[in-house]
């Protein structure tokens, strides 16, 4: 799953029956520092997210399970984020040799 921010809405009157009643939202995928990843994408919405919300999404085959029966979608918003906390992870380099983390 990945982070994203909703930046717009898509209105599509004629769409597959299985996604009737679900909004399509334009979402910018982001990293934990709120920096964009790639181009904005259209995501199927199942949790009442709105423009401006930070959300988490599932991609590809897993996104089709967001609506049952299997929806024709490759990106789905599955959670609205209230907030996230991060630590400074330090170096993420895994050195050669033996490393103990405990």
């Amino acid at each position, binding site marked *: 799953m990945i*982070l994203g921010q909703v930046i717009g809405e898509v209105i599509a009157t004629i769409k597959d029956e299985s996604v009737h009643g679900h909004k399509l939202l334009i979402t910018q995928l982001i990293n934990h520092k709120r920096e964009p990843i790639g181009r904005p994408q259209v995501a199927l919405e199942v949790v009442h997210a709105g423009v401006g919300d930070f959300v988490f999404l599932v991609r590809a085959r897993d996104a089709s*399970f*967001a609506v049952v029966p299997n929806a024709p979608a490759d990106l789905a918003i599955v959670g609205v984020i209230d907030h996230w906390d991060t630590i400074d992870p330090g170096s993420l380099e895994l050195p050669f040799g033996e490393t103990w983390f405990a």
Partner: protein
Amino acid sequence: MLIAKVIGTVVSTIKHPAYHARKIMLVQALHLPGEKPDDAFVAVDLAQAGVGDVVLVCQEGGSTRQIMGLKDQPVRSSIVGVIDSVHLTRGE
């Protein structure tokens, strides 16, 4: 599976029922010396991991659904273990 570090937690009230009562974490993969780190991503914690732990992350929906006892639900990445140590060689 990936070796990753738990770098944070995600708080979400409104979420798909598949995520109900699950701890949602931000994880970032460890990388080989000299390489650049990847972006962090979201994973469901299935191993009682904590922030700062180095963990094993499964990035495949089918496996995650099976561990969570779900069928046809929109989940993908999950933390499936907390790593104590690794031994890495240069492949020579």
